[in-house]
Structure formats: C-alpha cells, structure tokens
C-alpha cells in the first residue's frame, strides 16, 4: 500500500466515524492512528462526551469485534480475563473467555477498579495474550484497548500505576464540544439519530490495518527527526518539575506514531510537525510531576508545552 492509498483509506475511516462522533475529529484521528500503530489509547474526559460511541463506531468502521467492560471497585481480574469453570457434565474444568477476548476493548472508567484488576490488563495490553492457571492464550489480532477515565472524580478511584499508563500509546483529552457542534448534535437527534443503532460502513478490514501498519513502517525518518524525538524525551528526564521522565517506550511510541501520522498525510517521510503534533498525547501520561509542581497547579501539558518551546526543531528558525 502506498501513502496515497493510505491517506485515502485513513481519511474515509475518519470521516465515517466523525459523522457520528461530532466535533471530536482530533480524537478520532488519534484513536485511528493508535489502532494502525498497534497501540492502546487512554481517553480522559468527563462523562457524556461520546467516548463509548467513538469506540463502538470505530469497531464498526474497522470491522472488528467489540466488547465493553465497566470497571467497578468490585470487579475481579477473572471478570476481565475469564477463568476455568468446572463443567459438571464433562466433569472437567473448562476455560470461559472473558470480555478481553475481543479485537476492540472498551475499558470504561478504568480507574474505578482496584490495582489488582487493572493489572490483569497489563499482559493483555503488552503481550496480546492472557495467562490463566499457567496456560497462555493469545488474543485475537488486532487487539486494541480504548480505556476511559474521568478526571474529576478522585474519590473512589484508583489511579493507574505508571507501568500500566506506559502501556498506553496515547492519552487523549476529550474536551467539551463547541457551541456549533453541540447544536449540530441536537439537530442530529431531532432528525432521529439513535446512538444505540449505529449503521456505519465498514471502511477498513483487518487486512487493511495490517497493510497500513506495514506502509507506515516504510515511512522514511531523517536523522534530524530522530534527534528531535530524542531531545524531547530526554528533556522530560531533566526538567525541574518532573520526578519521573518518559521511558524509551515513549521515544519508540513517538517515532511509530509520527510515521503513521506522516502516512496519513500522504507523505512517505516524517516532518517535525508530525512529532510536535503528537508529543503531548504520547508524553502527558508518561511523566510524573513533583508534588511541588502539582501544588503550584502545573499540569503535565504545561510542562510538555515548555519542553516543546525550549527544544529546537530541526531546520527551524532560531
């Protein structure tokens, strides 16, 4: 697949999803970039912004199976992965697969479950496999987790550990829609739109996803771009407000996603804009701020913005 075809398919998929998820085109693009890059997405936003709708729409457009887990404080790891159940007829233990055995998994309000349950997803997200009672079972391909968390409610929630956060390729902040978008949304409902009944065209197939991933991996990256990515990530480890900086997994994630982004623009090479556009989504959940900085009201996005301002882009103008 060449980049022109990549761009065409990508744009069609985004258009299709964006036709029901109004005003969130950036979020849709990021989710699709992650899906093509083989990464997982953490969506953060208040309830009611269409996060679940986005995932369901994406599953239809990608032609993937879809499952949803509502994370609650009493959710057990076996409720996610499945487990061996004694079959009285056969007199033997039989594995009942959990909802994780799907291609597109929506982990809704993931930070409401305790760490034990959250960590049941760790292996699934990184290894694309689930191990129960010593038996490892592969998950269907492609496997993509889209998790949501609510930023406002801190009581009754369990913050995701750094190790788990690092597994997410992107963290996308979902914002409130603008006036015009919200009005258009109401018009759609007046015209009979029902979010429970989605009939979106299947624009991409699993084969397409594999081909697009291959095309993205063929995108050329100049050494100056690699230098830029390295500097950005290293800056997070030197910053005075950051306690724990981004890992090398972040560098790799930035590179892979920048390539996919370049291909989605119809280019077979990466430009600094690709990196800079994605830096926030890639890095914001991978850095841990010092308590002093948090008390001063500095957010990870502020810190990343300052890093982007301080870092020279290759071939830029001083």
């Amino acid at each position, binding site marked *: 697949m060449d980049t022109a075809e990549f761009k065409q398919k990508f744009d069609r998929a985004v258009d299709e999803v964006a036709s029901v998820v109004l005003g969130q085109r950036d979020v849709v693009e990021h989710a699709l970039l992650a899906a093509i890059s083989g990464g997982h997405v953490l969506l953060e936003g208040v309830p009611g912004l269409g996060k679940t709708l986005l995932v369901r729409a994406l599953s239809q457009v990608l032609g993937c199976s879809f499952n949803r887990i509502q994370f609650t404080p009493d959710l057990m790891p076996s409720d996610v992965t499945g487990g061996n159940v004694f079959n009285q007829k056969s007199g033997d233990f039989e594995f009942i697969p959990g909802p994780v055995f799907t291609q597109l998994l929506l982990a809704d309000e993931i930070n409401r479950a305790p760490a034990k349950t959250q960590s049941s997803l760790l292996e699934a997200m990184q290894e694309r496999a689930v191990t129960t009672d010593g038996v490892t079972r592969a998950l269907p391909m492609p496997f993509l987790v889209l998790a949501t968390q609510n930023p406002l409610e801190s009581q009754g929630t369990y913050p995701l550990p750094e190790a788990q956060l690092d597994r997410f390729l992107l963290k996308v902040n979902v914002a409130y829609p603008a006036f015009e978008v919200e009005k258009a949304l109401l018009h759609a409902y007046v015209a009979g739109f029902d979010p429970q009944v989605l009939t979106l065209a299947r624009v991409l197939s699993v084969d397409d996803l594999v081909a697009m991933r291959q095309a993205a991996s063929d995108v050329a990256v100049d050494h*100056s771009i690699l230098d830029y990515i390295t500097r950005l990530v290293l800056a997070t480890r*030197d*910053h005075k407000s950051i306690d724990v900086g981004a890992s090398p997994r972040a560098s790799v994630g930035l590179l892979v996603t920048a390539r996919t982004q370049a291909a989605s623009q119809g280019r077979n090479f990466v430009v*600094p804009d690709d990196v800079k556009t994605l830096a926030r989504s890639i890095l914001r959940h991978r850095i841990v701020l010092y308590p002093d900085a948090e*008390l001063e009201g500095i957010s990870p996005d502020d810190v990343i913005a300052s890093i982007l301002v301080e870092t020279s882009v290759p*071939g*830029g*103008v001083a």
Partner: protein
Amino acid sequence: MPRLGIWLVSACVSAFALGLPGAQRACATEDAARLQNDEALDRRARERLHSGDFAFCSSTNYRLWRDDKRELCAQKPALLADCPGLQLACQRPAWEDEAPDKDESPSWLGSLLDKLGIAGDVFARILFWALLVVGLAWLVRLWAKRFAARQTVSVVEIPTSELPPTPLSFEGDDRSAAELFAAARAMLETGAIREALHLLYRTTMVHLAENQLIVVHKSKTTRDYVAELPESVRREVRDLALSLDEQRFRPETPMESAARSLLARFSELPILPSATSQAARSARPLPVLLLLLLALGGCSDLELPEDPVAHRGPRGFGLFEELVSENAESMSKQIRRVSSVDEETTTVISLSTPLVTFDWNVLHDWVESGGHLVVVEPNPEFAKVFDLDAKSEECGAPLLAPELRVRSVGPLRGFVAKRPEGAALASCGSKVVADVSVYGEGWVTRVASRSLFENRALGVADNASLALGLADVDGASVQLFGPWTGEGAHHPLESLRRAGLGTWAAHVMVLLGLYALARGRRFGSPQDERTSARRAFVEHAEALGAQYARASASAFSLSRYAEWTREILRKRVASREDTPRSLARASTKNDAQATELSRCLALARTASELGETEKQHLERFRVLERAVAGTRSR
C-alpha cells in the same frame, strides 16, 4: 525682634499712648524712617515689570479684561510709558467685548480656526480629545498584543543537559532575509541542494518576520507559522513552506530543478519587499505621532486668556514676591493650611488671604509672642480674633505716604475707623490706608487695600518703596500667605490638573508610550528576568487547601484536623484518658459545649464515611477550632 524700625514704631506708639510732648513730631520722623524712598528699588521694580516675564506689560498679543483695561489704560503715562504691550492692549477691545483679532493667533492652526469660527474651535477640541483617545486605545492594543505574544511562549526553565548540538540548527544566525536568500542561491550553485533548501526555508520565515507577519522561534514548525499568518498570504506561504518541508525531509535527494522552482516561488510571494515593508510598518506610528504633535502645537492658542489675578497677571503678586525675596533674609510661601508658624519666621505677610478663625488663632498666638504680622485686606475673622477693626471702604482721595511720591493704581480702600493706638503709615484723605500697632509682644500692620501690592501698581512712582516699607522686610525672615494658602495639591497629579496640564501630560504620556513601542526594547535598559522568591509557608498551605477543595476532600481534611485537635487537647489538658468524651470535658467549661466537642471529635474522624456536606464539615471545623483556641492559655 531684631529690627530697629519696629522698636522705633513701638516707642512711638507708647509715646502717643502716654501723651508725651513732642511725640507727634518724633513719630513722624520714625514713620518716615520705615517708609524711606528707595529709588534703586523702584527702578528695579520697573525693570522687572518690563523685562518680558510680565506678559500684560511686554507681550504684543496681550488682551486685558474690561476692568483692568479701564484702570490701567487711565494711567497714562505713568505706567504705559515703558510698557509697549500695555499700550497695544489698551488699543484692543477687552476680552469681554469681542473675539480676538485675526493677527493675534500666531500659529497656523489658530489662523485656520479663526477662519472657521466657532466650528473650528469645536473641531480643534474634538480633534484634541479624539487623538488622545485614539492614541490611548492604540497604545493599549499594542501592549495587549505584546503581552499576549509573550504569554504564548510559556517559560518553564529546563536545566540544560549536555547534549550534542542540534543538527540543522541556525541558532545565533541573525542574517537578514536578503542575505539568507543570497546564501541559499550560492549554496544551490555549489550543489548542496538540501542545505540550500534549509536556507530557503529560513529565508522565507525571516522574511515573514521582517514584515511582522510572524514571530520566529527555534521551537516553531511550519504548522505554527502558518497558523500565525494572516488570511491574505496564508495559502501561498503555506504551500511554499509545505513544499520546502517535503524537499527538506524526504529520503531522496531533492532535484535541483525543484529547488530552483522553489527559489522562484519565494521571489513571487505577494509580500512587500522587506526593506520597504519594514520601513512602512515601523513608520506606522509616525502619522499619529505627528498629528498629536501638531495638535499640541496648534492648540496652544486655544487656551483661555490669562487670569488677571494670576501670579504674573496685572493683579497678581508676582513682582511683590520677587522684591520681598530680594530684600528679606529669607522668604517662604505658605501653601498648606496654617497649623503653625516656622520658628525662624519674624514677619508674616498675609496678602488678602481668606484665612479662617483657626488660622488667625495660630497667628494671634504667634504675634503675641513677638511676631510681626502684616495683614492686607483683613477679613472679619481677623477682626474677631485680633479684636481689631477691619472694615474698609473705597477712597477717592489721592494716596499719601510720608516721604514718598506714591500713586494708586486700581481701587484704593481705607479703614472706616481710625485706631487711636495705631500709627498711620499711609492714608487717603481722612482715612487710614495702613497703620501699625503694638500687639502683645509683637506688632500688627494693617493695610486696607491690596492694590498697593499688585504687579500693576509696583511699577508706578515710589509704589515699590511703599509696599516694601509697609511689609518692613529688610533683614526679616518672611512667610508669605496669599490666595494660594490652604489650597495646596494633595498629590502631583492634582498639581498637574490645577496647572491645566492634565490633558497635555496625558498627550505626552501617550506619545512617549507610542515612541517606546516604536523603538522596541532598546527604548529601555535591559533588565534581568525576575527570579521567583522562596514561597512562604502560608502559600504552600493555601495551595494544598486549594488542592483539597478541588478534590472535594473536606471530609479528609476534617478528619486530619480532628486528629490534630485531639493530640493538642490531650497535651494541653493533661487528661489521663484520651477518649473524646474525657478530652471534651477537660477542655470546655460547660456540659453543652463538652457534648458538642465530644460529638465533633468522635464524628470528625470518620467524616468521610458519613456523607455530610462541606457546610457541615465547616461547622465541625469551627467547633474544633474554638476548642483549640479555648485551651491556648493552659
């Protein structure tokens, strides 16, 4: 009182009072000693009056008010002889009579406005204020834009790590767009196509920056620059920049023809040539600056005519003030209300000053302790406090003073009643114009007519000698009271306003602001960035409190406070048991308070499980706070 004249007057007055023989003859001699004719002084007064500082005498454009014209122009040739301005002013109509002549407005704007009449005057005033408002608005807009531009670049300091230099970095290269373009062409000729394209990209952005369309920064990418561009040039610049990006970062070596095509596209950008454009933009404030300056210069003729009682106006005291300053040992003007008299002051001269009873009381005490008060046109409050008659009326007879050839200019007044204990210094007919008398250990000189001290009078005959003689300022430390006393400004801006300079000052401030912005940072001296000081503990506490508030964690903070309260109470009341009930009993004075505190201590620890509201939490806080405060002294 070191001065001899006063002692002589004192002796004279005593002799009169005691009915000593020969007192009248002797005293006439002593009065004459005080009112000596000083020809040099009179000459100096005339010279000063004609020197040019007193516009009513020297200015060829001066116009008089009707009363002044009537009084001054009747003085021929006494006052008019050496005052060419006054001679001309006498030939012109007074301010009240008709509008100014055309040749009285020397500025081009004044002449123009004369032709336009009242409409022109209104136009000029509207122009003045409109320009001030426009200038201010522009200034605010420019500052707001600069502030916004500064805000967009968030500054959070990053420690510099030891990294290799950035590839393709142009940091420190401050060449102009023209120089960069020439360098890019030269680079292309050498075959270094990619480097030439990097230079061309830089040329494009620097060119846009020179035209103030964007602000370049090392961290900005094509997307950032395009977002900054105005709609008019965005499309073409974006296409060129994206094409340059494509050629610069693509894996294949760029074609020379493509590079030449991009060079040509740059040359065809629809932007003014940098030099012209830059000059045009930097000159943008100039028209407004010029207009403001013209308005300043042109409107100078639009001010109201000089107030006749102004400092150097016909009826002002400017010349008298100068003469006192020259002859006295020291002189100061009293601007504030009279609360005390300076210790070194020997003479206070009150020139028709509207003082109140309190002020006169202060002066009364001072005179009784040995001071010399010269009071010109005393008011009823003076009469009440000093118990000296102050009533006066106009006097048509000529002014007379021993040994002096004096002449009144303007209305002359004399006291209605003579004071038997007072020694007359000047008179008109049967009325006393000025006299002096002993008062306690000091003296009071009353003068019924202020016209003796006015600028218009001091240049005539021996009037200057008379005025200085009445004030008796030789070797004295004088404090001068006048219409200005008690009317001092409370702050510098009020001073400006009173001087009629408020709007002019605003214009000048706007001009300076625009000039500063036009000049840029070079206008001011560079300053170091402000370093953040160490934060106070209270700021940390406030920040933490704000965090808790955002997280709606009032229950948690209440439980922590309850724990702390319990610990404090346990230490302070030295209770054996540390149950809430026993602590509450030992900490409070009555059972009701003890019950409430006990309940609070018990419930606050488990506040998060009770589902209470923030308001209830706050009430519990107050109870605990009172308990802690109540045991503070133990």
